[in-house]
């Protein structure tokens, strides 16, 4: 009887804490999205009236639309390249013993320790020396450096949980190492790969600090454009652009979730 009471109390308090955490996490985004539909001139909550005028303004604003395009294709490229590099590194670390393995592991996670500003300035100096600051490479590499630790950690966890007997069975049946990776390993860790891709996309898509130093040829990413915009203007246009950013990120996550299922992604 007593333990039932305690169990019930724990269950209720757990549910309350979960609710609180989810609310705190979602509330800022909800406020921004709701404010973006205002028909007024100021960003307020609750909004004054309902209108899509600020979305129309974003659509008509070349600066924001080109920044959205830049952010999207950079994030997609980063996700793809980070996945390839991250998988190769994680596979090597998980499956082989070699001198300097611990150092490689530490090096791969070092971008999480180095402040993003320092990373941005360092990469800028490097690419200025190479004469490549007017290309996409600094931005791509900067975001890759930020994304790879997340990608590696996720894939390493997937590889660690994977049953290696299946790979060994395939090898016993004379499959080549490449065939084993392609036909056994990759399909087994697919949810981990997709989670890693989401991490990489989101890390790149939302980054401001490193991007501010590495934007190229007049092309600016969306978060940098928003950051500069709010410095001199504070109107619901920012809320509309931010809502579009949230929508793009959610779309990527939901598409992948629909493809492979949320429980496998977790």
């Amino acid at each position: 009887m007593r333990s039932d009471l305690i169990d019930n109390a724990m269950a209720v308090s757990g549910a309350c804490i979960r609710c609180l955490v989810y609310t705190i996490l979602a509330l800022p985004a909800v406020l921004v999205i709701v404010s973006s539909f205002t028909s007024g001139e100021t960003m307020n909550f609750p909004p004054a009236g309902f209108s899509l005028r600020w979305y129309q303004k974003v659509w008509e604003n070349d600066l924001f639309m080109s920044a959205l395009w830049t952010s999207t294709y950079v994030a997609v490229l980063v996700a793809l390249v980070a996945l390839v590099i991250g998988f190769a590194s994680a596979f090597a670390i998980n499956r082989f013993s070699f001198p300097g393995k611990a150092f490689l592991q530490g090096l791969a996670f070092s971008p999480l320790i180095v402040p993003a500003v320092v990373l941005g300035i360092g990469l800028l100096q490097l690419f200025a020396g190479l004469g490549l600051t007017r290309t996409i490479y600094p931005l791509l590499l900067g975001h890759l450096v930020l994304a790879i630790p997340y990608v590696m950690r996720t894939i390493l966890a997937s590889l660690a949980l994977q049953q290696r007997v299946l790979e060994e069975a395939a090898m016993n049946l004379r499959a080549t190492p490449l065939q084993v990776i392609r036909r056994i390993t990759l399909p087994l860790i697919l949810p981990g790969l997709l989670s890693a891709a989401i991490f990489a996309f989101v890390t790149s898509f939302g980054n401001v600090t490193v991007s501010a130093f590495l934007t190229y040829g007049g092309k600016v990413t969306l978060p940098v454009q928003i950051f500069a915009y709010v410095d001199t203007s504070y109107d619901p246009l920012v809320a509309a652009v931010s809502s579009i950013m949230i929508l793009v990120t959610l779309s990527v996550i939901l598409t992948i979730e629909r493809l492979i299922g949320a429980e496998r992604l977790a």
Partner: protein
Amino acid sequence: MQRRTFLKIATAAAAGALAAPCVRAQSKKFAGVTLRVNGFGGAWDEALRKSVVAPLEEKYGLKVQFTAGSTSADLIKLIANKDDPPYDLFMADSPYMIELLKAGVVEEIRESDVPNVKRILPGFREYGDFGVPFAVSSVVPVYNSKYIKQPLTSYSDIARPDLAARVVIPAPTLDTATLYLLGLAEENGGSISNMEPAFKVLAAAKPNIVALAQATVAEMQMFQNEEVYAGIFWDGRAHELRTKGVPIVTVVPPNGVYSVSAYMNVIKRTKYPEAAHAFAEQLLSDVGMLAIPEALRYGVTTDVKLPDDLRKDLLFNSPERTALKKKIDWERWIADRSTRIERVNKITRT
């Protein structure tokens, strides 16, 4: 028609026909040229596009590309690429000019290249022939008249006991917004080399201070949501609050106002110095000069005649008001940054 008249008309027509291509070439002399400028973003860049870029494009075929970003990051980008600069023109506030000059990345702008330079008001060009100031923003005390019935009159009034738990000040890390500290010092017998009086007033104001705003937008929101009733803010932003229905009053301290100028610089090694000078000339023209005041209600830096509707909204709207603008030793102000941040943090956070 007389023979003489016929000859006159024929000569004029022939000359016109011969000169037409030259005139056209002259009027579109920057066709195909695109100047790259770092942007401040939002309404600021939009105002410059409308009043500076559009007339230049129409007159000369000159195009201008603004790249939005933060000035500090853009400055580092410029210095890192000084041999092959990513910008032809660079916008920077007064304190950033020191770094630009130290790095040797900007050219002098002389009256012979930009005749409108002669229109800049005395005392507004702080760095000799380098850069042209085109807007001035002031850090002033402000208050919400709905709640504060006894008007503030000086920077030191933020320590008034009736403002308990209702004051916001800019965070000490914001170099320009913290100019109010210089106001506190000079109003109380101090100076840039003796900031102690400022820190004493700040200590007295501590019970009033509810927030150190890390960004202008954050401060704006605090005033808009009536979380604070008084504080130190930018004159242009205070006007923006008024347009949104918040009854914010801008105070003009009689002992002096502390301001920062926005400069336009021509970058060394730009491929298009003549086009850059044309941009500066347009910026300092009547139409160009009124761009920022009309959009954001920041002050002008030349002798341009202010339209009446604009004059009433601007802080520096008469020679008497303009005389209140204090001269600032920016090099010293930046050099003392760390000490200042440490002292303000110590006072406000302990």
